[in-house]
């Protein structure tokens, strides 16, 4: 059998790719699952933390509200600083083995993997979301308040959708980082793409060839991710043009909209201009 093994580089790559396709694809699939779930969960954590950090406190509020908010914010700050300030690889071992040795909580390797990526991403996203919320013009908040929306409604229906649009590039960054950095989870035995690549490499000592395949798969995943996020951005922006809603069907053929028939002249004039501009 050994005599039939290829000896050249491309031959070995093809050999590994065809004989271990299932194993590589399974690893890649796990990598995608960890990255996507971790990024999504991280975004949710980030949004929750970001919203709590931006709750306005007025001097009229009762003392207990201020106190609770202060304590919660302190805890959240510690969370962000700790998980942003330490390597994910160390966090992985710290949490996985720590939980194993000293608590009755026995994390499965998979739940540990998802948990670690989520809280790590959450720490980064918290700051991103806070920035995203602060980047929205104060006028949007005032507009929402002026029609009687509560802080929560203002956030949910007005600020959040706009902040989300602004931070999509950063979410994309996190997704790409997670696709790649989930490879450090191999230290706790998570069977993702890097882990299986190393395993398959070890079978024949074909490290260069196995890593070539891993490189290609990682690249395919990250390039796809960035394209998908671009598409999502475009979709959120909505169409660049809009249709004039008018009951006057002739308006469409003339290209001008006279509206309304009984309005003052300057209305009709404005609408004509508007029609021509676009």
């Amino acid at each position, binding site marked *: 059998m050994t005599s039939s093994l290829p000896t050249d580089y491309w031959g070995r790559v093809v050999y590994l790719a065809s004989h271990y396709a299932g194993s590589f694809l399974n690893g890649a699939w796990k990598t995608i699952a960890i990255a996507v779930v971790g990024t999504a969960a991280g975004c949710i954590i980030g949004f929750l933390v970001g919203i709590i950090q931006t709750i306005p406190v007025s001097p009229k509020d009762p003392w207990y509200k201020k106190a609770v908010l202060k304590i919660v914010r302190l805890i959240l700050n510690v969370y962000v600083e700790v998980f942003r300030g330490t390597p994910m690889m160390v966090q992985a071992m710290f949490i996985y083995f720590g939980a194993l040795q000293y608590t009755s909580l026995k994390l499965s390797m998979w739940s540990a993997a998802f948990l670690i990526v989520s809280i790590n991403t959450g720490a980064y996203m918290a700051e991103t979301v806070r920035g995203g919320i602060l980047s929205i013009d104060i006028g*949007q908040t005032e507009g*929402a308040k*002026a*029609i009687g*929306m509560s802080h929560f409604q203002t956030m949910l229906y007005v600020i959040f*959708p706009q902040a989300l649009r602004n931070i999509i590039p950063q979410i994309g960054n996190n997704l790409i980082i997670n696709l790649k950095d989930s490879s450090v989870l191999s230290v706790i035995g998570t069977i993702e793409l890097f882990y299986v690549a190393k395993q398959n490499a070890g079978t024949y000592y074909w490290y260069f060839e196995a890593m070539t395949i891993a490189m290609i798969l990682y690249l395919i995943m990250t390039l796809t991710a960035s394209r998908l996020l671009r598409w999502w951005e475009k979709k959120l922006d909505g169409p660049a043009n809009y249709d004039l809603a008018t009951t006057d069907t002739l308006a469409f053929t003339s290209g001008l909209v006279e509206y309304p028939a009984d309005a003052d002249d300057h*209305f009709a004039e404005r609408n004509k201009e508007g029609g021509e501009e676009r």
Partner: protein
Amino acid sequence: MSEVILEIRHLSKTFGTNVVLRDIDFEVRKGDVISIIGASGSGKSTLLRCTNFLETPTSGQIIYHGKDLTASRIDEAAYRARVGMVFQSFNLFNNMTVLQNCMTGQIRVLKKKKEEAEAEARKYLEHVGMLPYINAKPRQLSGGQKQRVAIARALAMGPEILLFDEPTSALDPEMVGEVLAVMKDLAASGMTMMVVTHEMAFARDISSQVVFMKDGVICEQGSPDQIFKNPQRSETKDFLSRFMNS
């Protein structure tokens, strides 16, 4: 005299050590159109923003239908839903279309059904001549168009009073007319309005009362005829002569 909706009593506002409003006292009756005029920095906008609690008054009272809103913790959101506001910078929701802008408050705050909210929104958008643009996003509209949508959005909430904070100051001169025309219609329909403005013709011809502010206090107050034809205070005379000649 018609019913008093809003009373402002001894209202003061300070930012740090900077006193912006000092002992402001006046009332708004149903159907009043009150123009607030004065130089930049005289506290006009702050007064309007205090009126619907976008700024918290430092002291004094705001009494709405006999109820003192500054005395206890009140539901500011519920009050704001009754008092509409139109801003200098429009503040339309950029993530929504024109129609959604006029519906969201009705659905989220007034808890109306979607169909009902849409019918109301369309009605007011038609009033301001923006019905053809219901599918447009704010960024696709001109300043005057945005401001007309903003007025429709405020009207769709069925407010008792409308506050206008320099509604035409951010507009190109040729667009000022279309917004003023809408406001003129509103005033004629009996809407109660408080308008901070630099449009002296509007203050003179449309309003029922004119308030002249200087350095955070109400300097002079009266009917448009009194203020424009026969001002009592020298500050008012100075201000108006500068404005009318320019």
